[in-house]
Every structure is written in structure tokens, then in C-alpha cells.
């Protein structure tokens, strides 16, 4: 029997303690993966953004507007495939006023051509383009409000006051995390015609699809230079960079999640260290015997290290396996219901890392007890009363 297997067998000597420790480590691993999943639900918005788009917004602030003719000018740039203008407006359901609806008025034709991540049957998309009062609705909102295709719906404007009448032409499914999940899209022309004459022909953003993703940054710069002499200057970014700066606005919250996820690893270390130290103390006299019959110091290190790493590994695997139902099931439902969140997903890379980390933390936790065991005189160890 090798020393390593003896180390693992030591875990059976106090089944209760071993089980408790592994469960405690598993709980911490679940917490760790939950924190990573919460963090990822923001940062995934960046990584899943298509890399072939640039977005221009007003240089000054998000509530400022650009003249609509900027869209046609951007479309003329070489390297740009499609360009569309959009304007945000708040809408709310006349009865379920607490449900947040993200509404944008868009130039329908280029919008539909560009946004392949909003998946719907082709004829529904064509119907949206053809119907002036058409409304593209996410399947989540359609379900929540009980809307069906062809239905006429009445909504209240928050940014643009009054009653709005739409026809549901399209119900789509978004394949991109955090994009369009609670959104509706309507025709910009419909909005524009309702505005007073002096407030017409305005947009908030221009989104453009480019042929070559590697040209994004250069094109963005060229667009800003083009409008630099105008009264309304643009601030153009690749869509990914735009979303990164958007997520950056919650930077403080993400940092807090990061700090907490490091702290939880500290808790894992404490729990494992505690258990290993207890075992080592109880077995001091055995270590004395082993040393006395000729085992070297490395044997003790193997024993302690093996036991601690096995504890970490066991807890890590248990926690990771349980994290999927807990995080993606219960916790995900909870955050979706209580705060309008996209579903939580355990980041796969972190799930694998958690198992490795727990094992390494186990090994690290063995360091102090191992040092104490090595410093012990054999005679003292033999005399030790558990």
C-alpha cells in the first residue's frame, strides 16, 4: 500500500468530520460559482456581442439626439454594409406597469437585416418591415403579457407621452445573452410622425454592420472625424467596446463580486486547514511511531498533503456538481423574479477551475500542520496524548 492511499484512507477514520468538511467545502464552492455566474451575467454581454458592428452615439450624453441624415452618411462609408438609426423611448403596459419594457424605435429594414441574433421566422420579419405600426416582441414579454401574432396592443409612452397602438408582427427569441430579452422594437417613422415638427428627424444611435471586423476601430474613428465639424458630434465605438463601457458603469458592483469570490476561497482554506490540523493533532503519536521505524519527513508530508488534497478534491467535485442545479435552477429563478435578470449560467471554465482550486487549497492548508509535524521530536511525539 502506498503512502498516498494511506493518506486517503485516513479520511475514513472520522467519517463524520470528513463528510462535514466536504459539505462545507462544497457549500463554499457553490457560493464561489454563484458569484462568478452573477459576474458573468454582466460580462457575457460583452463577449457575446457580434464583432462586426460599430455604434455611434452622441458625444455628450445618452439623452442627446443626432439628426437622422447622419445614418445615410454613415451608410456611404466604404466598409459599411448596413446602417440603421434608432431612438429609445419608454413604454409601459397599461396594467402591468411594474414590468420593465425596453423599447427602441428603429429603421426596420436595415434593423432586421443586421440583427440575426433575434431569431424569428422570415415571414414574421418581413411582416414587421411592411407594417408601419408593427411591433417585434421578445418571446418572454409576449408570454408575460399573453400577446399573440396579429394582436393589436395598446401601450403607454413614458418618454413620448400618450397612448401607442401597435400590431404584434413578430415574436422572436434572442440567442445573445442579455440582449433583447425584455425588448420591443417599433418603426422609427411611426414615432417620428407623431412628434411636433420642430422635434422630428432625430435619433439616439446609429448601428452599422461592417464587412471586415478588423476594420471596426478604424471605421469608428473615421466616422467621428467625419462629423467633427458638425454641431452634434458623434462618439463611435465597436459594439463590443460600447457594451464594455456600459458594463464598466457597474464596475464597482463587479469588483465587489470579485472580492467576495476571493474571500470565499479564504473560507475554504480555513475549513480545510482546520480539519487537517485536527487530524494531525490526534495522530501525533502515530507520526512518532512512523518516524521511529524509519519513515522520513517526506512520508509525513505525503500523508498530510494527500489527505488535505483529497478533502479539497472531494468537496470541490461535490460543490461543482451541485452548483449547476443550485445556480442555474433555484438561484437563477430567484434573481430573475426579484430583479429582472437574465438567466444565470455557471461559467464552464470556472467550474473546472473550482475543482482544481479546491484541491490546491487543500494542499496549501496542509502546510501549517505539516510544518508542526516535522518540527516535533520523535520522543515527544510518542509521548503525546491525543
Amino acid at each position, binding site marked *: 500500500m502506498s503512502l498516498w492511499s494511506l493518506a486517503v484512507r485516513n479520511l475514513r477514520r472520522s467519517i463524520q468530520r470528513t463528510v462535514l468538511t466536504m459539505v462545507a467545502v462544497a457549500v463554499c464552492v457553490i457560493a464561489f460559482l454563484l458569484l462568478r455566474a452573477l459576474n458573468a451575467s454582466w460580462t457575457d454581454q460583452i463577449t457575446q456581442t457580434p464583432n462586426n458592428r460599430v455604434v455611434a452615439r452622441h458625444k*455628450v450624453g445618452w439623452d442627446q439626439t443626432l439628426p437622422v441624415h447622419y445614418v445615410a452618411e454613415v451608410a456611404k462609408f466604404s466598409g459599411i454594409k448596413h446602417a440603421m438609426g434608432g431612438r429609445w423611448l419608454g413604454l409601459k403596459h397599461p396594467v402591468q406597469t411594474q414590468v420593465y419594457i425596453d423599447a427602441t424605435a428603429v429603421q426596420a429594414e436595415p434593423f432586421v437585416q443586421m440583427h440575426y441574433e433575434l431569431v424569428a421566422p422570415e415571414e414574421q420579419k418581413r411582416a414587421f418591415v411592411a407594417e408601419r405600426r408593427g411591433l417585434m416582441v421578445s418571446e418572454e414579454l409576449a408570454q408575460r403579457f399573453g400577446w399573440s401574432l396579429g394582436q393589436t396592443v395598446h401601450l403607454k409612452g413614458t418618454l413620448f407621452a400618450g397612448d401607442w397602438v401597435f400590431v404584434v408582427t413578430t415574436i422572436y427569441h434572442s440567442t445573445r445573452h442579455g440582449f433583447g430579452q425584455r425588448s420591443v422594437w417599433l418603426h422609427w417613422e411611426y414615432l417620428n410622425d407623431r412628434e411636433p415638427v420642430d422635434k422630428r428627424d432625430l435619433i439616439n444611435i446609429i448601428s452599422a454592420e461592417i464587412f471586415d471586423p478588423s476594420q471596426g476601430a478604424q471605421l469608428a474613428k473615421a466616422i467621428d472625424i467625419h462629423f467633427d465639424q458638425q454641431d452634434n458630434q458623434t462618439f463611435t465605438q465597436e459594439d463590443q467596446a460600447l457594451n464594455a463601457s456600459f458594463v464598466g458603469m457597474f464596475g464597482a458592483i463587479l469588483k465587489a463580486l470579485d472580492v467576495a469570490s476571493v474571500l*470565499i476561497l479564504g473560507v475554504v482554506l480555513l475549513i480545510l486547514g482546520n480539519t487537517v490540523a485536527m487530524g494531525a493533532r490526534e495522530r501525533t503519536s502515530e507520526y512518532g511511531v512512523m518516524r521511529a521505524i524509519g519513515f522520513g519527513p517526506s512520508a509525513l508530508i505525503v500523508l498530510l498533503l494527500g489527505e488535505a488534497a483529497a478533502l479539497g478534491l472531494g468537496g470541490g467535485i461535490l460543490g461543482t456538481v451541485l452548483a449547476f442545479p443550485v445556480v442555474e435552477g433555484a438561484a437563477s429563478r430567484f434573481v430573475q423574479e426579484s*430583479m429582472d435578470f437574465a438567466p444565470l449560467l455557471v461559467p464552464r471554465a470556472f467550474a473546472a477551475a473550482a475543482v482544481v482550486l479546491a484541491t490546491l487549497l487543500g494542499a496549501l492548508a496542509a502546510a501549517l500542520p505539516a510544518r508542526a509535524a516535522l518540527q516535533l521530536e520523535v520522543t515527544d511525539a510518542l509521548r503525546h496524548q491525543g
Partner: protein
Amino acid sequence: MAPLNLLFRYGLRSLWVRRATTVAAICGIALTVFVLAAALMLAAGLRETLLSAGQPDRALVLQGDAFAEGDSRVRQNAAQLVAAAPGVRHDAQGPLVSAETVVHVYLAQPNDENRLASVQIRGVTESAFRLRPEVTLVAGRKPAEGTNEAMVGVGLRGQYNGLELGQGFALQKNRDVKVVGIFAAERSAYESEVWVDLDLVRSTFGWQGYLSAVSVRLESEQAFDRFAAAVTLDKVQGLSAERERAYYRKVSDNLSNTISVIGGLVAGIFALGAMLGATITMYGAVSQRRREIGILRALGFARGRVLLALLVESSALALAGGALGLAFALCTQFLHFSTVNWATGQELVFRFLPAPRALGLALAVGCVAGIVGGFFPALKAARLSPTEAMRR
């Protein structure tokens, strides 16, 4: 009572004998209490910031269905209509009514050009100061009316480019404003704003003839219903009135919910981990001291006493851990926390507020984790039969 006293000392001394284990358990509980306290302090800080902006006798008049000031657009004459409504408080200079326009401007952090914040700019007149006596200058002077001078809330001071006394930034191309004053407002959300002249904002952003909202101070809290009924009567104008408190609760709901839900969820799991940690420690303590416990029982200490002694031990662990965690949590109040409130698109500065309720709740959770964790091991010890325990 001597024996009881003795038992307590015995419990505490055994913690000292197993120092390393004790420290590990204390740290585990301390981390839990720290995380929970920090999350609750942050939520309390956000509440402080947004709810102290709302005074019970103040109200806002917005466009009918607008969610926030930034979404609202009312005609200029709404201000006169509001001023004439019943229930409005008057001072020597007339009705306490402030016509305001709110816009947002991107400003970058001095150390990171890519970290843009959307800073809320409030266009105000002299009435805004009469309406909000809590706004006081802490440096510089008040901006002169009809100029391009601005004053900056202390929360934003120095955090973004141009927001320092003597500096300035561009509202629009060729429309620079100069910072001449820094103001405080009892830690309310106004401290996360920049105030400039109303007409400057309106001419710069094409708001001529329009306002975002009209703020008003009422004769009393009870005057609101009368006031609201009168203001909303005119269906053509389509105005809505809201108590300032309700308004700020509404716009902060989503953000404070997020912080408390995430904080609570995470701290809950942390607490479970700490509880298990305490259980492991106390089981270890019991199994190591079987013989001692047997002797205690043989000497005539009753089961209940032994249970009590071990519970005292785990409570001491929990209290020490809780105190340590709170000490760390209290240090966070010196941190600056700033994030966007996505309900209004406004950068909001707040702090970790050491609210007694937040601290008390965190400490209680830590103590419960320690005591519950210690309970089953203590029960096991109390059930030991003296003869078996001493035989080992």
C-alpha cells in the same frame, strides 16, 4: 454559582489551548459577518442617499407617464400652473416652486479615459435653493444666475474630469461650464449632481419652452392630495404629481433590490459555510476532550451544565468572529462606491453606511451560525456516559 463560573472559564481556556483551530473558526465567522455587513451597509447607504433626497413635504410634477425626471418633458407654463395650485407653501419671495431641466453628460474618470460616467446635470434657478435648504456650499461660491458657472455635488468632486473647483467641462461643443462651487446636501442623491443655470441647459440642449419637471414644497405632508388633485385636473397638460419620497423610492428600487438580493444570497451561503466550519471545530473539541468531559460528569456536573459550557465556548467563538467581521466591515465606510443607477441612467455616489440595523443583523447571523454549529457537538458531549467517556 461557583461551578458555573468554573465551567465558563473552562470553556474559554479550552479555546486558548486549541488556538490554531479557534483562530480558523473565528476567521470563518468573521468573513461571513464581513460580507453580510458590507452588503447590508451598501444597501443602507443607497437608501440613505436616495431617501434623504426625498422630503415628506416636497413633491414633483412630471409629464403623465414619465418614469423619471430625465424622461419627462412638460411645457414651460406647467410651472405657473403648479405655483397656483392649492397646498403650495409660500415664503417671503413667493411660492416655493422650482422649474428644472435634467440632462446627462458623459464624463471620463481622470485615471481611466474609458470609464465613462453618465453625470446628471440639473438646470436650476434661484428657487431651487429656497426649495432645498439642505443644499449648502462647502467650497467656493454659488454660481451667478445667467452665467455658465456650475456647482458640483461633493460625491462627484474630483471623481470625473473637470469636476473640481476652478476646472470645467463642455456641456456641448463650444459650451463650456466653469466649476465655481462645491455643495453638500446631507448625503442625498443631489450630491451626485452638477447644478447649472436653467436657461443655459435649455438653450444648450434645445429645451426652449420646455422643462423636465417642477419641484414644489407643500404646506404640509397632508396637503399633497389636494395639490395632486388640482395639478392633474388639466387633462390637456397631462401632468402627474408624486411625493418626492415615493419618487426616489421608485427610481432606486431596482438598484437597491439588486444589491440586497445579491448580498443576501451570497451572505446566506457564506453563513452556511461558517456554520459548518463551527460544527467541525466543536465536534473536534468534543472528541478530543471525551475524557475531560467524562471527568466533569463524574464530578457531578449535570448534562445541562456540560451542554451549557460547550455552548458558551461556541458562542464565544461566534462573538469573537462577529466582532472581528464588524471591525473589518466598519473600515469599508471610508471607501467610495459609485455605480450607474440604470433606472435613471445616472451615476450615483454612495457609501457603506454603518447603520445599526445592518450591523446588528450581520452580527446576529454570525452568532446564530456559531451557536447552531456548536449545538449538536455540545449535545453529543452532554449525552456521553461518564464511565464510557473516561474509559476511552
